[in-house]
Each structure stands twice: as structure tokens, then as C-alpha cells.
């Protein structure tokens, strides 16, 4: 991966060699790449499960795998994708790599802790992979009691332990980011000069720090009940399984925002760069990230409308849920308004960002359906919900992640990817995604329950459509994988600032030097100041 041009200059990739220089690195950029390799692996494992699920659902009879296997497939798909791919994805890869650079820091505040976080994710992932290979787990990623504590025969403990450990990885990353943002900003980098990517990560980190510990203790209680028979949620002793659901969703609802907020940050960067225009209403967009993080903690009970929580609680949580709609709507409208009178170019990252807005709009609007008590009675635990959260988590979070990968790939590797292929893959993914998940809205309203191995015949047409879409989607995900690897050797050498973006990370060379900047930057104006960027370029050029 080293070209003649880059060979002369030392950067973080060629500063040292060997396995040890990677496994013991404290450089946030290298740790970001370690995460990238790890979560890509987890993504393809989770994707393999998804493929098997979709193939199984081609026919109504449930004839490809046994129902036992099928239950393990959707459980492991959920566990892998949520805890080992989506939650670490943008923060641990792109956040790790770029957050310090964007605020002009040499590294995160706690580099050793950062490396530890990566090891924790790996160890957690290994536990879960072990559980998978040893026989799997069939509780669903939600681990509802008493099924998970008393009735399931799967490797619940190993999987839960894996999630517990990965949770600490997430907590430590969030903690590291918050301290870094508070204490490590370069001279002149005031709060309202920070890129929105940093704001989004600040909000995300708040959730990681405040929410994840509750998941951790819930898993501990699950463990105590299953292994030591402490029976905290056991109805036979007067315990309440619904209490488990409260604790679980206290984390797991905000966790959705851990996945999608960083994506929103990425999209803000991309939309601004490729419109060559500051984000419309920068402060409001920045605050809306924090608002989503805070409000996201007040709504978890909307997962429990028919679960046996009280009528009154249902109403309170439904009411509060609608408040999240405000900052979300603001973001979508403000991104769209940013395009107005911009100078818009359609390179790959922009295609992903626009795709994100579209899919997130649909995902968000269908969220209004499931937050409405009357409709949620009918659609909860059906494919409608499955479609809704895939629109947010795949259409939203994953599109943002891929957009960010394309945006920053030149900076990370010093290489450009082939633009034509990249545009094609963006299109394929967008179409494949909609074909996969749109039919599931209809299936859900028709009443097809989720987690069904076999289903009534009248649902087959829509299931076949969905599976067809999934095959397109799978191809769409393979293409970037191939050309990214290809570009490491054959891609064009990337300039320092290929997109004409304003962030500090573009002011240093590609790939960046070990401590990011030759000289600590001094910030004199806000993010997205294209006028002064172009003025500088004129001076330099």
C-alpha cells in the first residue's frame, strides 16, 4: 500500500511495521482500523445469518432449516448486527479515527483505554462466536425472561457475557470521547466551531455512558437468575418478567440512537461538503443531536404497549415518544434546506447521504405509526416493526456508515476508490434495500408476526419479493468490499483534500502523520466556512 510518492513521507501506516506494532498500538487511527477489520468480520457473519433467514422464508413451510435452527439464526443475526456491528460501527471506526483530528488533537485523552476497548469488543465477540459454534442461542436478541432464564436450552450465558463485555467497550469509548471533546480541543476550537460529526458523537457518547450500564446490570441479573437461580424476574416467586423488559429497553431503545446519531453526524459533514455550503441552522442541528440523546431516554416504554404494562404508562410513553419526532424532523428539514442554493456535486458519499435522508425519512415516519397506541396494538411484534427498525438501522445507520467510509477512505488509506463502481454500489444498495424491506411493512400490517419460521401461504408473494431484494442488497454490500481492498494497491493516490471539505482532518496529509498534525492547528473560524477555505486555496495555489 505504499506508493513512491508516499514512501518519502512518514505517516501513521508506515511509521512502524509488524503485528506487534498494530496489536499494541495506542494510535487512535490504527485502533480505528483494527475496529474496521473486526466489525467488518462481524458484519459478514451477521449478514450470512440474514441470508439464511431470507432464503428460509422463500417458502411458507419452513423446510430449509428446522425451527430450532431458524430461531438461532435470527437471534445470532440480531446479536451480531446490533452489539458487534452497528453499535461500534461509526463511533469506533470513523469516530476513533476522525474525532481527535476534527478537533485538532493529537490523540484521544486515554489511548490505552481506547486500545482496551477494542480488545473488549474482540473478547466479547469471541464469547458470542463461541456460543454460536457450540450450539447457538435461541432467545432472540431481546433475551426476554422467563424464556431466557428458565426455558431456553441455548448458550444464553456465553452470549450474554459476550454482550456484557462488548458493553464495556462501548462505555469506555463513549467516556473517552466525552473527555476528549471537553479537554483536548485545539486552540480556537470552541463548541460552536466543532463539526456536527463531533456534536453527534458527543450526544452518542452520552447515551453510551448513561445507558449501557443499565444493560450491563440487566445482563448480570439475567445471569444470576439463570445460573444461580436467584429468580429476580421469576413469576413463580412473585417477580415480574415485565420489569426485565423495562430495564432492557431503558438501554436498548436509546441504543437505536447510538446507531443512528453518528450516521446523522456523517451525513451533516457530507451534505455540507458536497453542497459547498454550511449546514442550514448549524446550532439547531447541533442541539438536536443532544436533544435526541436526552429525549431518547424517556420513551422506552413504547416497546411495552401490549406487554402488560399499565394503561397509564402506555399513554405517558406514547406521548413522550412523539417529542423525539421534533429534533428528528428538524434534522431532515435542515439537511434538505442546506441543498437550497448550494453547489451540489454527486460524488459517492453524497449519494449515500441523500439515500440516508430518504430512508431515514421513511423509517422515522413509520416510527410515528408504532408510537401511536391504537396502531401499535396491531403492528407490534409483526414485520411492520421489523421493516421500521431496519429502515432506521440499515437504511439509516448503515447508509451513513458506508457514506462515511467513502468520504474518509482517501484520508484513511491515501487512496481513491473507483468512483464508477462506488456509484453503482450506492444505487444497488438503495434499490435492494427498499425491495427487501418495503414489502415487510405490508406483511406486518397483514399480520405476519416476526420470528416466524413458517407462515401462512398468503404471505408468500411478499416474502419472495423481500428475499429477492435481499439478494440484490447482498451484492450491493459485496461490491464496496472488493473495490476498497482493490484500491489499497491500485487506487489513485489521494490528495490531502479531495472533496474540498473544511474539516481540520483535511488540512493534514493523506494518510495523516502519526500525531495527526505537523503543527497543532489554530482554529479561527467555524466549521463549514467554504469562503475562507477557497480563499486559502487561492493564496496557496
Amino acid at each position: 500500500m505504499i506508493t513512491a510518492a508516499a514512501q518519502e513521507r512518514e505517516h501513521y501506516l508506515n511509521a512502524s511495521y509488524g503485528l506487534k506494532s498494530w496489536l499494541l498500538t495506542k494510535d487512535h487511527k490504527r485502533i480505528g482500523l483494527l475496529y474496521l477489520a473486526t466489525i467488518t468480520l462481524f458484519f459478514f457473519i451477521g449478514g450470512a445469518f440474514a441470508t439464511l433467514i431470507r432464503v428460509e422464508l422463500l417458502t411458507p413451510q419452513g423446510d430449509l432449516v428446522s425451527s430450532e435452527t431458524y430461531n438461532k439464526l435470527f437471534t445470532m443475526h440480531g446479536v451480531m448486527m446490533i452489539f458487534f456491528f452497528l453499535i461500534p460501527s461509526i463511533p469506533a471506526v470513523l469516530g476513533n479515527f476522525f474525532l481527535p483530528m476534527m478537533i485538532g488533537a493529537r490523540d484521544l485523552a486515554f489511548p490505552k483505554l481506547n486500545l482496551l476497548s477494542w480488545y473488549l469488543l474482540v473478547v466479547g465477540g469471541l464469547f458470542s462466536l463461541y456460543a454460536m459454534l457450540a450450539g447457538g442461542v435461541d432467545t432472540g436478541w431481546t433475551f426476554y425472561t422467563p424464556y431466557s432464564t428458565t426455558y431456553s436450552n441455548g448458550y444464553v450465558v456465553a452470549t450474554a457475557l459476550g454482550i456484557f463485555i462488548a458493553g464495556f467497550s462501548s462505555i469506555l469509548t463513549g467516556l473517552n470521547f466525552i473527555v476528549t471533546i471537553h479537554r483536548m480541543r485545539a486552540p480556537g476550537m470552541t463548541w460552536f466551531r466543532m463539526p456536527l460529526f463531533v456534536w453527534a458523537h458527543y450526544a452518542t457518547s452520552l447515551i453510551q455512558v448513561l445507558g449501557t450500564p443499565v444493560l450491563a446490570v440487566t445482563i448480570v441479573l439475567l445471569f444470576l437468575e439463570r445460573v444461580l437461580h436467584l429468580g429476580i424476574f421469576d413469576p413463580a416467586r412473585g417477580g415480574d418478567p415485565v420489569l426485565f423488559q423495562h430495564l432492557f429497553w431503558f438501554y436498548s431503545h436509546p441504543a437505536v440512537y447510538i446507531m443512528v446519531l453518528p450516521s446523522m453526524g456523517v451525513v451533516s459533514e457530507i451534505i455540507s461538503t458536497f453542497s459547498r455550503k454550511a449546514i442550514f441552522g448549524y446550532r439547531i442541528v447541533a442541539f438536536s443531536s443532544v436533544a435526541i440523546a436526552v429525549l431518547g431516554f424517556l420513551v422506552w416504554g413504547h416497546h411495552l404497549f401490549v406487554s402488560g404494562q399499565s394503561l397509564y404508562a402506555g399513554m405517558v410513553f406514547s406521548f413522550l415518544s412523539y417529542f423525539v419526532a421534533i429534533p428528528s424532523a428538524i434534522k431532515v428539514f435542515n439537511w434538505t434546506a442546506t441543498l437550497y442554493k448550494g453547489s451540489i456535486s454527486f460524488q459517492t458519499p453524497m449519494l449515500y447521504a441523500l439515500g440516508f435522508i430518504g430512508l431515514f425519512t421513511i423509517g422515522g415516519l413509520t416510527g410515528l405509526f408504532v408510537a401511536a397506541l391504537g396502531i401499535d396494538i396491531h403492528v407490534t411484534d409483526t414485520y411492520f416493526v421489523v421493516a421500521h427498525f431496519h429502515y432506521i438501522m440499515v437504511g439509516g445507520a448503515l447508509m451513513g456508515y458506508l457514506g462515511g467510509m467513502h468520504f474518509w477512505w482517501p484520508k484513511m488509506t491515501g487512496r481513491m476508490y473507483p468512483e464508477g463502481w462506488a456509484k453503482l454500489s450506492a444505487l444497488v444498495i438503495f434499490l435492494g434495500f427498499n425491495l427487501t424491506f418495503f414489502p415487510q411493512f405490508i406483511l406486518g400490517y397483514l399480520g405476519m408476526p416476526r420470528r416466524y419460521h413458517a407462515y401462512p401461504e398468503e404471505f408468500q408473494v411478499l416474502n419472495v419479493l423481500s428475499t429477492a431484494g435481499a439478494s440484490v442488497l447482498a451484492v450491493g454490500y459485496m461490491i464496496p468490499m472488493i473495490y476498497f481492498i482493490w484500491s489499497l494497491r491500485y487506487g489513485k493516490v489521494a490528495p490531502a483534500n479531495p472533496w474540498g471539505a473544511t474539516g481540520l482532518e483535511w488540512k493534514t496529509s493523506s494518510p495523516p502523520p502519526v500525531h495527526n498534525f505537523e503543527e497543532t492547528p489554530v482554529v479561527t473560524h467555524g466549521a463549514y466556512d467554504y469562503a475562507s477555505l477557497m480563499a486559502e486555496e487561492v493564496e496557496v495555489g
Partner: protein
Amino acid sequence: MGKFQLFPVQASTLAPEVDHLLYFLLAVTVFFTVLIFGAIFYFAIKYRRRSENELPHVQHTGYTLEILWSVIPFGITMVMFTWGASIFFTASKPPNNAIQIYAVGKQWMWKLEHLEGQREINELHIPVNTPVRLTMASEDVIHSFFVPAFRTKQDVVPGRYSTTWFTATKPGKYHLFCAEYCGTNHSGMIGWVYVMEPMDYQNWLSGGAAEGSMAENGKKLFEQLACNNCHKEDNSGRGPNLVGVFGKQVQLAGGGTVKADEAYFRESILQPQAKIVSGFEPVMPTFQGLVTEEQLVQLVEYVKSLGPKPGAGPVDNGQKPAPKKSSNAGSTPANR
């Protein structure tokens, strides 16, 4: 491939209400999706980059637009909330004239029992245009009673009773699903709801081989378990006389009252000491582990049949909400 559908049948009084709210939400969704997609496409084409060095000059000051596009959507969502909540309220509160049916979920089947004693597995026969109230229990894990054509769904949590109700409006055969993942054969925990004309329903009830009504079976159990040794009808037993108790407020030892509903009877059989009736000693043994949920509902139904309105007619469910803090001695919440 079965018949292809895009929209589920409406077969209950609730269904059109839910669907109307859905139409409203769909309209809002389509409007905003078209608005956003349209704006993106329009701006993207109109303001595409024409030269490499162009620099847009737009000043954005004030927050008028932001206020506009947060207040208006919020107003719309409040309509959704109010509308949805009112449907939910209706769906939560069974009418007083509903006929009572019991359901017990266990891995992986639905067992249903009519007051007249008819028992069904994975099938439920009900009369059309008659409110039906289901009192549900689970023998093992959480299940969820879901009839898409009725737009109704209720989780059945082990350790307590759950309630749902519906009025079917169209005779026919409709899917019954378990909607809460319950283990290996979750997708096999399905069945049919048969909605029948009242006459057909009466015929169906009287046909078949019901071994006595639920109350009669409960009475047999009551005697087998020797409950009647203490709960005597002449007030001479060591336990309270159960005649006419159902639906009333019961004075508890140590002060306070509790409404004698299904949940209270269930609890009193399983955890007799939780709420002792005033004037009695806590001497009753627990029947936890000795009776199944199915036997429990029979016992409860028997005690109900001794209530103010004996027999299997419309059940008085106590229309008034239980007064708040009805029991200060209560060491167990009856209505969990």
C-alpha cells in the same frame, strides 16, 4: 401460493377504527415523503455544481423556518397521540356485557375454555356481534394473543391474568397467532378464530362433548382439593364463605379492602397469606404447584358462579375502577 393480499380483512369493531388512524398516518407519511424527496430532487438538479470554483452565498439568520417545521409536525403528532390513545383506551376496557372466555397459553398451543365447559385447542368459536372478553394466563413463558383481522393483541405474562376483548363483525375464519416469541415452535402456536352467527354458535355450544360447565368442573375441583372443608356456605368454616363475594370489596385483616376479582382469587389460591380476609386466621396452605392455570380458571369461575349473579350469564366485572390504594395491608399487588 395462497390468495395474495395487500390489506387485512376488517372483522371486528376495532378494526375500522385502527384502519382509519392508519389512513391518516399514511396520508401524513406520503405527504412528507413526497415533500422531502421532491425537494431533494428539485434542489439537487437545480443547484447542481456548474463550475469547480463556484461558491454559494446564502445567509441564514433567525430561526423562523426551524420553529415552523418543528411546531407544525409536533401539532400533527399530537393528533396521532390523542387519536391512538383513545383507540387504545377502548381496546383496553372490556364492555360489561361481554361474554367471558378463558385462554391459557403454553408452549406451543392455545387452550381455550368456554363457561359452558367447551374446551378447544388452537381454535376459538365465538358469536358474531357479541363482545367477547378473554381472561388469559400462561403456564410457562410470555405468549401473545394476536388476531390480525380483529387488530387486537395482548401479551400473556406468566404469573398473572391478562385481559383482552373484541366484538367480531363478520362471520368467517380468521388467523390466531402467538406474537411474542416463545421458543422452538413459536410459529406453530397458531390457530383459527371461527366467528359464527349466534344460532350456529348456540348449536356449536350444545353440540360436542363438554363434560359439564366450567363452574361445575371448578366445583368438582373445589371438592377434590377439599376447599369446601373450610370454605363452607353456612359461615361455619375456618375460611370465608365464598357465596356472593365476587365483584365486591373485601375487608382485609389489618385494615384496607380489595376488590374480589379474578386476579384476587387467583392470588388467594396461590398465595393465601397475601391478603387475609378480616376475621380469619392465615391457615390456608398454598396451592402453588398443585393446580395448573387451567384448573385455576375453573376454580375462579366456580367462585364467580357463587357471586351476586350466579350462573354463566353475562359477568359483572366490576365496572368501577378499583379505588386507588384500596389496600394498605396488601403485600401483593392483585392487579399486576
